[in-house]
């Protein structure tokens, strides 16, 4: 078995591969090449990395200009900064002006657990979901990360990619297929469905494993693309399984959970449903794993949530 790698590392190595193939590909960083695992990229292809200093608004504006002049651009900065401080640049310079920049939010969610809320990005799905013309992607593991980076480079549209920095286990799945906008099936089951995204897919998978030992087979979907949402997969989960639990490394407001809830309610599907994410507070601090556990985003916590949703036997 391959040693687990952080999605961030897989992103950086995939990007270097792409840069070798395409001299027109540029990475723009805001003093973030170290945090973005891009130091080897900078050494290997120094002409394809543009440094703008600690200036995230500038990062996004410059990236838009480079894209307008024909470059394939990945603008890389911690998710907490690039989706808040430069939100107006993302909205106007990229999305409204239709510049196909790939905005990469690194060390997303509570990756920087102990650094506190200044460094957490639990708002980015919500902020970007309300902006037209951007695909929002949070891959679960190495496989999805690599595929997402390749897919993002290929499409001539704005994309937001969100990566954590913790080593992620390779998730086995029935079929190694990846398509932006299409949920990836991690595990089949009918008792209920965990619809998870990014680094919460692994704990959802752990929960399904625990429940399987009790004879409860749950479906696990990696909803790597938050927008556009794979509506068919969500509706099928509600029709074919006993309920839906959404899981995300994001505020419970405005993210994957609310997107699924809105879809199901408007489709007239009233099924047992829970949103697991971060409550409306400045989070406890510590390591990412500890914070996840505190909010019930681990195998046992999610299994308990499932037991509370499932009909009593």
């Amino acid at each position, binding site marked *: 078995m391959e040693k687990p790698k952080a999605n961030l590392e897989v992103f950086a190595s995939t990007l270097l591969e792409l840069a070798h193939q395409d001299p027109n590909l*540029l990475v723009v960083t805001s003093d973030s090449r170290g945090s973005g695992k891009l130091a080897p990229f900078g050494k290997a292809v120094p*002409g394809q990395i*543009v440094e*703008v*200093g600690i*200036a995230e*608004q*500038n990062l*996004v*504006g*410059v*990236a*838009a*200009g*480079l*894209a*307008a*002049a*024909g*470059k394939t651009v990945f603008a890389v900065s911690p998710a907490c900064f690039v989706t808040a401080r430069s939100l*107006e*640049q993302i909205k*106007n*310079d990229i999305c*409204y*002006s*239709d510049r196909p920049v790939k905005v990469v939010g690194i060390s997303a969610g509570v990756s920087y657990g102990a650094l506190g809320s200044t460094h957490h990005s639990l708002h980015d799905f919500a902020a970007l979901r309300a902006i037209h013309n951007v695909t929002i992607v949070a891959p679960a593991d190495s496989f999805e990360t690599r595929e997402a980076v390749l897919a993002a480079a290929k499409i001539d549209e704005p994309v937001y990619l969100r990566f954590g920095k913790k080593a992620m286990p390779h998730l086995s799945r029935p079929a190694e297929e990846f398509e932006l906008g299409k949920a990836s099936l991690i595990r089949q089951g009918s008792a209920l469905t965990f619809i998870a995204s990014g680094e919460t897919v692994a704990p959802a998978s752990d929960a399904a494993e625990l429940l399987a030992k009790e004879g409860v087979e749950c479906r696990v979907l990696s909803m790597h693309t938050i927008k556009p949402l794979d509506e068919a997969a969500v509706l099928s989960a509600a029709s074919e399984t006993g309920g839906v639990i959404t899981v995300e490394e994001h505020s419970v407001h405005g993210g994957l959970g609310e997107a699924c809830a809105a879809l199901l309610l408007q489709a007239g599907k009233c099924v047992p449903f829970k949103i697991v994410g971060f409550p409306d507070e400045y989070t406890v601090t510590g390591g990412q794993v500890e914070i996840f556990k505190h909010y019930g985003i681990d195998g046992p916590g999610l299994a308990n949530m499932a037991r509370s949703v499932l009909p009593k036997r």
Partner: protein
Amino acid sequence: MTMLTERELKKKSVQYRKDILRIIKGSGSGHTGGDLSSIDILNVLYNRVLRVTPESFENSDRDYYIQSKGHCAEALFVVLADRGFFPKEELNTLNKFGSHFIGHPTRKVNGVEQNTGALGHGLAFAVGVALAAKQDRKDYRAFTLLGDGELAEGSNWEAGMTAAHYRLDNLIAIVDRNGLQITGSTEDVCQLEPLGEKFESFGFAVRECDGNDIGELVHTFGAVPFVPGKPSLVLAKTRKGKGISFMDNVAKWHHGVPNDDEYSRAMAELDEAEKELAA
């Protein structure tokens, strides 16, 4: 491009001022003061400086013009129409329901490079364009027009540092230094001076000129880049509302729309200016 004489350019400026007032009057809104302060700059850029035409607009070697002070869209639209980017009659739809001629430039209008309107965005975008040209060893240039009030946005200074850091002498930023913003004098709202020195200390080569004087503008733009290896900054001293006596340097014309009487008086003044140029 047929080279217009300075006299012909001056006539264009009068015609553009008439067009601006006509479409603002027709639509009932617009940024009259800034349109009139910046129109001579746009005139010289599009008729004398920029290597871009409707035919070459999609070419990767064209010069780029990005209007950072997006609210002066009417001035840009009038010049683009005159340069043949779209039929002039389309401007009669300004701000009408469903028209793509809205109060700020968007790429739906042929000739517009980037959607602007929120301030402090144009310079960073222009830095990206200029940097791409350097990387590709091409000789196209990026021009951007900034408002003076806009310079309180910190993003301008972030972009300015980057422009100097990468020695982007193919970047030409122009400040429409009319000295007024919606609240009043820029110096009362948030002091900008010494503005030239500020840009110089950020690594720009700075030149001042009368931004409403065609001859000075032609001369100044003819000298870019002012210093090889440095981005150029044209500090264009202008007057808000320039060309109409009762709008000249009056803050309330920032987005004032003339009533019928004011409109007739303004047009009469411009008719007079036209006659003088014909003589």
